[in-house]
Each structure stands twice: as structure tokens, then as C-alpha cells.
């Protein structure tokens, strides 16, 4: 690997890192047959972690960071003074294959600035994916960032080679989009997401291969005034209407040569964390968007308690919950009991009566759960209604500066 390629890699990895998504999950299990390279495991693998604590699973790069668009939040916007570079299709393919063979990555996550035209850019990206699959028998994971302004047939071609497709919503409201991303158009983003959603459903029904790991999106948190509640409602809508697999929340991060129009401050990481927790409540804990809204104050989640605990503290009359009798739905509402702990409780209580010690073996967060549950040898007494309960369970104020 020569210095020119290394230099491009540094520029185009740096330019891609503000996209939070790096998952390599959701693809059907595959393994290499004779002459082929690569496999997928279903759950995905994180091959390394950088000092920001985030997982490195895929080679996440841009094809180019030259861009015709001028989105204020983006490090690669047309008017930014960052260094620019462009990979050839062959270079991306080579990097992916060589990194993969050394077991550095699960596959490729390719995105791009828009050059010449959205169609031209999308075609180049499709060529990378096609060459990996056809010329190299590559069976690893491919995630393509789809360009919503590209022609529909190109978006559909991408689904033939990629495991996952994604289109970033970036800004949750039409007004923000207009202000911060003047060339983008909410309707075409939604339209393209709906189109991909339809094709995925059809292909599943017809047993054809089309983006088998589904589609995902990203919203930026903290670049505009959208509340947590509005973000979560937007996500719930997207999960329902276009069948998204994941919504990624990305705390707006200061970028080199930032735009004057945006706040330059440390990213709101704790807020991002709370949004992910709320998102999980909707996807895995049977919370409705209204329940989640109930956990927030004036549309924003508290930073010192997680949204599930916040909900429980506001709905104390529903607690304590008897672990030996309660329905699954209500056990899922107990702070400190994860979905897996709930499953284990339900499994175990068919054969035994659970005491507090037993529960302690099934969850790692008994301290948080105790005031809200009843076991065979334990009741919380008046704890559930104590006025200082919130203070006792709140996380110590986390240092949110850098170190």
C-alpha cells in the first residue's frame, strides 16, 4: 500500500467518521465457499474500539469527500476548507479485500459526497459493491449509504449487492432541513426510504436477495432545537412506516472548519445516550411513544436518570411488581430488569419460587430494581413511595467533559 493511497485513506476515513452507524448485524448467515472470501455471523463483530469507545466493525470510508451540497452540519460541505480526495472504485475494493483478509473488518460501509450528479455517485458506489461480490467472491458485509436524490433504479440496484442500505434523515424537521441543508429535500428522503422499504418487503416475500439486513438512518442530535420527545416520535414513525431496522442518534460534534451557523461545543453525549435508551424502550420493552413522552419533562429526558426509571418514578402507583406473578409486560417496566433478565425470571418461576437472592443472580442491577419489586421473601415496604427515591437512584453527575 503506497503513500498516496494511505493519504487518501486518512482523508476519507476522517471524512466518514461522523456517521454513527457501524453495525455489521442482520445479514443472513453466510460462509465462504471454494474460491470465495468472507462470511457473516448474524450478530456482527466489533473488530476494535477507538478511544471514543465506539466500535470499528466495517471499513467506514467515503468514496470522495468532494461534494456539491452545502449542509451546514457536515464536515464535507461544499463551502468547507477541508482537504479533499477521491478513491477509485478499484482502490476501495482493494482496501476492503486486504483489510478483510487480515481480519481487521467485517466488511465495507461506503458513503460518498455527491460529485457530478447523484446518479453518477450512486453508480460508482454500486460498482464497488458489484466488483467485491462478482470479481472477488466477497461474502462479507456491505453497507451502502444510499443517495436519496439518485434515480430509483440505482437505489434498487444497490440493494442487489448490499446487506444494508441507509439514508440519513439527519435533521428531524423540514424547517431545520431547509435552514441547514438547503439542497436536501425531506420529501425525496422519505420517498426513497419508503421505496427501499417496499422493495425489502417484496423481496422477502418473493425470496429474493435485496438488502437482507434492512435499512437504517441517522439523525443528528443538538444541531437544531428539536426535543427528545419529537425525535423519539419521529423514530417510532419511521420504524412503523418504512420498516427501519435502526435509527442512529448522533450527537452533533464540532467539526474542523465548522460553519458559523452552528454551535461549536462539546457533543451532548449523555443526551444521545438517553435517546438510545428511549429508542430501546420502544423496540424491545413494549413502551409506546406516549409512554416514552411521559418519561420526559417538557419533551426532554432527564440526564441523571434513565428514561425507564424516570417513567417508573412518575408512575409509582403501578409498583411494586411481584416477580413471581406479574405479566411480562409489567416486568419489562421494572427499572434494572433488562429484557433478558425478564425472560429468565419467567423461565425460572415455572419451576421455583423466586427469592431476592435468586433475582440477584438474574440481573446485574438489583439496586435499581429493589424499590420496585416484590419477591417471595421481600417487599420494598414504603421505599417505592419515598420522596428521596429519585435522588438515591440517580447516577452521580457524570463528568461530561472530555476526560
Amino acid at each position, binding site marked *: 500500500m503506497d503513500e498516496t493511497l494511505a493519504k487518501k485513506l*486518512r482523508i476519507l476515513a476522517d471524512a466518514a467518521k461522523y456517521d454513527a452507524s457501524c453495525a455489521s448485524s442482520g445479514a443472513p448467515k453466510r460462509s465462504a465457499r471454494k474460491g470465495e*472470501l468472507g*462470511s457473516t455471523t448474524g450478530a456482527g463483530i466489533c473488530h476494535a474500539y477507538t478511544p*471514543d469507545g465506539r466500535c470499528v466493525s466495517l471499513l467506514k470510508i467515503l468514496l470522495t469527500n468532494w461534494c456539491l451540497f452545502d449542509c451546514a452540519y457536515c464536515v464535507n460541505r*461544499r463551502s468547507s476548507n477541508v482537504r479533499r480526495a477521491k478513491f477509485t472504485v478499484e482502490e476501495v475494493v482493494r482496501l476492503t479485500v486486504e483489510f478483510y483478509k*487480515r481480519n*481487521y473488518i467485517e466488511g465495507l460501509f461506503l458513503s460518498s459526497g455527491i460529485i457530478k450528479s447523484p446518479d453518477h455517485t450512486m453508480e460508482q458506489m454500486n460498482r464497488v459493491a458489484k466488483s467485491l461480490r462478482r470479481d472477488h467472491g466477497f461474502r462479507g458485509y456491505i453497507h451502502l449509504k444510499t443517495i436519496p436524490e439518485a434515480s430509483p433504479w440505482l437505489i434498487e*440496484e444497490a440493494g442487489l449487492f448490499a446487506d444494508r442500505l441507509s439514508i440519513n434523515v439527519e435533521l428531524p424537521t423540514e424547517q431545520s432541513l431547509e435552514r441547514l441543508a438547503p439542497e436536501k429535500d425531506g420529501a425525496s428522503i422519505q420517498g426513497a426510504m419508503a421505496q427501499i422499504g417496499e422493495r425489502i418487503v417484496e423481496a422477502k416475500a418473493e425470496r429474493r436477495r435485496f438488502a437482507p439486513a434492512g435499512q437504517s438512518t441517522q439523525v443528528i442530535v443538538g444541531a437544531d432545537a428539536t426535543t427528545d420527545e419529537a425525535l423519539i416520535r419521529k423514530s417510532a414513525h419511521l420504524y412503523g412506516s418504512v420498516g427501519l431496522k435502526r435509527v442512529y442518534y448522533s450527537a452533533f460534534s464540532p467539526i474542523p472548519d465548522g460553519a458559523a451557523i452552528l454551535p461549536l461545543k462539546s457533543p451532548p453525549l449523555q443526551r444521545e445516550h438517553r435517546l438510545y435508551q428511549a429508542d430501546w424502550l420502544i423496540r424491545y420493552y413494549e413502551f409506546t411513544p406516549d409512554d416514552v413522552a411521559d418519561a420526559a419533562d417538557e419533551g426532554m429526558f432527564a440526564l441523571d436518570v434513565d428514561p425507564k426509571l424516570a417513567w417508573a418514578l412518575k408512575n409509582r402507583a403501578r409498583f411494586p411488581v411481584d416477580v413471581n406473578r406479574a405479566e411480562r409486560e409489567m416486568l419489562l417496566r421494572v427499572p434494572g430488569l433488562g429484557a433478558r433478565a425478564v425472560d429468565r425470571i419467567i423461565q425460572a418461576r415455572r419451576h421455583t419460587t423466586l427469592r431476592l437472592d435468586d433475582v440477584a*443472580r438474574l440481573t446485574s442491577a438489583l439496586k435499581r430494581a429493589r424499590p420496585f419489586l416484590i419477591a417471595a421473601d421481600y417487599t420494598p415496604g414504603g421505599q417505592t413511595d419515598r420522596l428521596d427515591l429519585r435522588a438515591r437512584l440517580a447516577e452521580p453527575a457524570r463528568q461530561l467533559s472530555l476526560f
Partner: protein
Amino acid sequence: MTGPTRAVALAPGADLAGFRAAVRALVAEGVPPERVAWSVGATSDLFGSAPPAETGPLRLPRAVADLVPMVVPHRDPERYALLFQLIWRVRAGERHLMAVPSDPLVHRLNLMRKAIGRDLHKMHAFLRFRRSEEAGVERFTAWFEPDHHILEAAAPFFVARFRSLTWSILTPDASAHWDGAALRLGPPGRREDLPPGDGFEAGWRDYYESTFNPARTNLKAMRAEMPKKYWRNMPETLAIPALVRGAEAGTRAMIERSPSVPARRDPARAVAAMADQDPASLDELNAIIRRSEPLVPGATQAVLGEGPVGATIAFVGEQPGDQEDRKGRPFVGPAGQLLSRAMQEAGIDRGASYLTNAVKHFKFEERGKRRIHQKPTAGEVSHYRWWLDRELEFVAPRLVVALGATAVLALTGKAVPITRARGPFQFERHHNRFAGFITVHPSYLLRLPDEAKAEAYGAFVGDLRRVAELGRELAG
């Protein structure tokens, strides 16, 4: 329960076979867990020098059978004793013991299983190969230090992934070698046997540095997932100290720096580029279709529509067949020849009409040497409809004739029964609106039994006569 203590010595590492044999023998002889002293020695020395009685396999609940191989690789010297306790209790009547995860023994074994699972996962994730070349053949070698005896359990993952490569994994306990066909386990390896890193290893370190976002530094999260013990065998972690040192200052500088004067780049261009990318003519559209990927692999080429732009009548069929796929032209196979004959009898000039298909690629099933046509699915039809819509926009016929159900589906987006809708029909799709006519596909006539053929063909020609008439009226 009294009696002499039985000593069972198993081979070092994960001695699954030895453990199984020992359990069978112990159960057959009715030796309870409290009388067994498990040890791990240089040789498998079961029951002193007395050979174990030949015994058949034990029947165990699935959950127990699955647990055993996931605990045996653990380094805990008590692993065999704990597993035997579990097996003993299950056989003594607690058949559902594994379903009680709150039981202290089950809990402990589950934790051990989890530790093995994590160790395997981290080995799959953090192992790094280095490339070397011998006589033009590339070879990959890795050095890894797992917590437990998992090499054998971890190897199938690497076989499935790197089946066509030649590789070796060296660990302090044992080594595994794959030559592209078979896996061989060998003696412990040495770190010094690892070849030196190459340019891609340096490139990987570059990548690792660049993908890190210093404004989000969170060392605790990194260490929780990638504990320091793994670092010395991962090339990228050499970059960590410098990255961390630079992060705080770098981010502060980034925040304090006032935005620079934006580069002046022509804003009108982005919008112009987007408007410009749509095909401006039928030729441009056809060029796109020609280089497109078949939705279902197999077709030789895309079969484009044929006929003059501005034709009065456009015929839309289903999809190209075997002949069409070979020749790259629509309606040249048996059904196409039948259509030509019928058009001639009905007084329609084929050369002055536009002929195309709803789907542009041939889809087939191979039976011996024959390629048997397969009907396109609704999903395939909707994938190709973008092109049909555009194509008809460019050709702008006065009348569109749908030949068969697939064409109707492509033109309306709905399944419409041909028998009922046969005749004049108004097609509406997005902003396209065409006077239309629905009739059968000529291949339908070919499939009919001989006695019905003549009548059906007559009706088809009759339809085409009405089409010709409608065409004259609309063109008039």
C-alpha cells in the same frame, strides 16, 4: 454415601472426549460427584490403571448436552466437577434444572459458558493476521493469547471465513493450520514466528487513527470492550497513547477556532446537477437500461424496446424469452412470430409500431440444456416499471396495448383479470395517462390445445383489428 474416592485425570486443555468417557463410566458404576477427584494431568489416566468399562452414550436433556462443550474449554480447575454435579442432579430427577437459571450451580455454569462465549467472540474479533509470501503463494499467520482453551472451538469460524486462504493461528497452548482443505492442530506456537507487518498493517493503523473522533473520547467504554490485555497483539493499539494525548487539546482548539471564510463554490451547480441527471432521450434511457443489473441473475443482456419514437401504437409484452435474450431484440421468438402474423392479418404495420416488454431481462430455470421461461414476480415488475414509464413518455404513443396480465400489472400497478378487462382500457400511472387496450399475450395462444387454438387466434386477430381501428381514430 460412602466409598473410596475415585481419581479421574483428564488431558490438559479442553478434554471433551475424556470427560464424556469418564462421565459414562462414573454413571454406569454409580459413583456420585462427592466421591470423584478430578484432575488435569499430562495423560488421560482414568480410574488409575483400570480401563473404564465400555458404556453407551448417556441420554441428557438438550440444554445440558449443549452446555458441556461450552464449559469444558474453561481454565477453572473445577469445571469438570461442576459439570458432573449438574449431570448427576439432572439424572437424579431434576430434569428441568437448566431451566432454573437462578439455581447457584446453574448460575455459575452459565457464567462460565458466558466467559467462553466472550473469549471466543474476542478471539474472532481481535485476532490479526499478517501476510507473508512463499514462492508466490500468500500465507496468513496470527498470534493470539486466549484466556481459555478455545483454539479448537474458535477455528471453524476462521475456516468458514477464510476458506480459500492458507493460514495458521499460533497460541501459547496449541496451534491450528488451514491449508485450504483441512484443519490440522499442532503444538504451541511462538510469537517470534509471526512474520513482520506490511504496508496494509500501517494503513490499518492510519485508518484507526482517522476514524477516531477526539471530541467523543471515552476511554472507559473502550477498555470495557477491548481490555488492555488484548492490546499487545493488535497493531492499531500502538496509536492509542498519542491519540489520547492529542484529543483534548485538539478538540479545544477546534471549538475555539472561529469558522474560516467559507470556500466559494458555485451553489447553483448542485441543483443543476440533480436536474440534469435524468435521461433526456430514449437513447439515453436505453443506455442506462443496457448497463443495468438484472434483478434476477442469469440474463445475457437487457432487451430494449424497438420501433419509432412517436409510433401511434405501442405493444407491451411480459419479458424477453430465450430467443429474445440471445438476439437482444423483443418479440423474435415463437410468440413474437405469432404476433407478427396476427398484426399483419389485422392490418398493423409492425415496423411502424413500438414493441417492448414490462420486464427487460429474461428470467429462466435451467432444465438440462433448455432454459425454461419463468414468470416475473410482482416485485420484479415494479422494479422495471420505472423504465417502462419513462420509455412510454419518450415514445408518446396514442394507444398502448397490454399483452397479457404482466403488462397490465406494469401499466396499472394492479392485478386486473384479463378475461374481464379485455378490450379498451384507460391506463393511468403517476402522471402518465394513456388510451389503452387489453388483450392476451401471444404465448398464451401457443400453450392452448390445438382444438382451441384456432378460435382463440381468431379472437386475438379480432382484438388487433379493433386496436388498428382505435389507432386510426386516435391518430386522425
